[in-house]
């Protein structure tokens, strides 16, 4: 490295002068994580219902899907969706869309297992009782099973969201302008790696701790209500 004999003096104004840009970048991370998480929940719930259907035709592919989504690194998934899938299907995802899809796919592996465990934890008698008083399958799920399962799945789903938020910081690899993208740009133009990456790290830790606290509060409230 050429820089070895250059004295590095810390200059935090690089970050403090641009706090708005950093905040906007962090907002992109949160927003992508929220969208990816929402999609992951929809996919996961549908998949969990297939998985617990007891019909091998549905439950075996659903099992393999989970193994696949949980076994492939997010970075591979991002490039696979953004370049690979787009290429084969002949569609052009924006990098933003590709990132949301990649997070949703990875996340759905985890949400499927969470919903499956949540559904399995509901006593069989609940289903039988609801069916015997004349509710059909859909109504039983809607009014009896899902409201009870909701309580069980909230804490682990919260942790999945936090995992996706951390994963979202990878989005600059396909040039979605989030806070890490900003930090990389500032590092290249101004050469202030320590300040900009420390700032991004601090923002991420604060965000994750904030959401962890939120999950903790939710968990306690749901527990008291039971």
């Amino acid at each position, binding site marked *: 490295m050429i820089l070895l004999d250059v004295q590095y003096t810390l200059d935090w104004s690089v970050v403090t002068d641009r706090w708005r840009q950093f905040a906007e970048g962090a907002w992109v991370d949160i927003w992508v994580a929220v969208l990816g998480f929402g999609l992951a929940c929809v996919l996961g719930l549908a998949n969990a219902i297939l998985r617990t259907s007891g019909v091998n035709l549905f439950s075996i592919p659903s099992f393999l899907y989970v*193994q696949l989504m949980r076994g492939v*690194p997010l970075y591979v*998934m991002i490039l696979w969706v953004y370049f690979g899938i787009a290429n084969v299907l002949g569609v052009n995802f924006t990098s933003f869309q590709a990132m949301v899809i990649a997070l949703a796919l990875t996340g759905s592996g985890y949400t499927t297992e969470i919903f499956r465990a949540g559904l399995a934890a509901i006593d069989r008698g609940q289903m039988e009782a609801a069916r015997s008083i004349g509710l059909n399958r859909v109504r039983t799920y809607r009014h009896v099973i899902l409201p009870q399962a909701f309580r069980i799945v909230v804490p682990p789903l919260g942790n999945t969201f936090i995992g996706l938020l951390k994963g979202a910081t*990878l989005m600059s690899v396909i040039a979605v302008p989030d806070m890490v993208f900003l930090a990389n740009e500032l590092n290249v133009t101004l050469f202030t790696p320590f300040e900009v990456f420390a700032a*991004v790290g601090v923002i991420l830790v604060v965000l994750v701790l904030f959401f962890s606290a939120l999950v903790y509060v939710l968990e306690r409230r749901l527990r008291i209500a039971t």
Partner: protein
Amino acid sequence: MTGPLLTYTFDWTVVVKSLPFLERGLTLTVKLIVFSILFSLVLGLVVALVRMAPGPLGVIGFAYIQVFRALSLYVYILFIYFGVAAVLHVDLDPFTAGVLTLTLLNSAYMAEIYRAAIQAVDPGQREAARSIGLGSVGTFVSVVFPQAWRIALPSLVNQFTDIIKDSSVVALIGAGDLMYQTVERNSFYQRPFELFTAVAVIYLVMVVIVAQVANRLEKRLQRHLA
């Protein structure tokens, strides 16, 4: 470059042609994973003991775990590889930076696994050991730890799967690992679907094997509890 699904012709020969490169990358990835696993197993235990110590030491351990569990590997590796290296005037190579960051992040997760396992050992064991005259170190080394280790091992091995997946991110600082080689081959052949599918399969196989080992271990080590 793009076309509708039916007109896309797959060319899997690029994967075969890339094999020598992927093999070289895989060798490095395996080294990266093995070093990170060994170091984080040791560091994780140390962090767990610090966390369980009374007073300010315990607070430091707690903070370490919270911070490193909240960071994403990508943000952290940028901070270490560019930021810290510039400030300290050290010339880190990507491999060392990768092992360092993977170790630090995962030691926080492993510390929590160790802590849970140590707390799961019946307190009577500790009391009995102390009452027959073993010191606190002797009690830990020959009574508590051997039992805690059995409880912790399956979860620790599960944590290895995260190390495998996270190791792909080290490609982003140019480590020459499996993912790096794949990205390189893709810019050469422009065949993202085939190449990223291949690399996804390789990571998946590694993850599934390790997860299976964790499963087997869990059954074996807890046989006496059944």
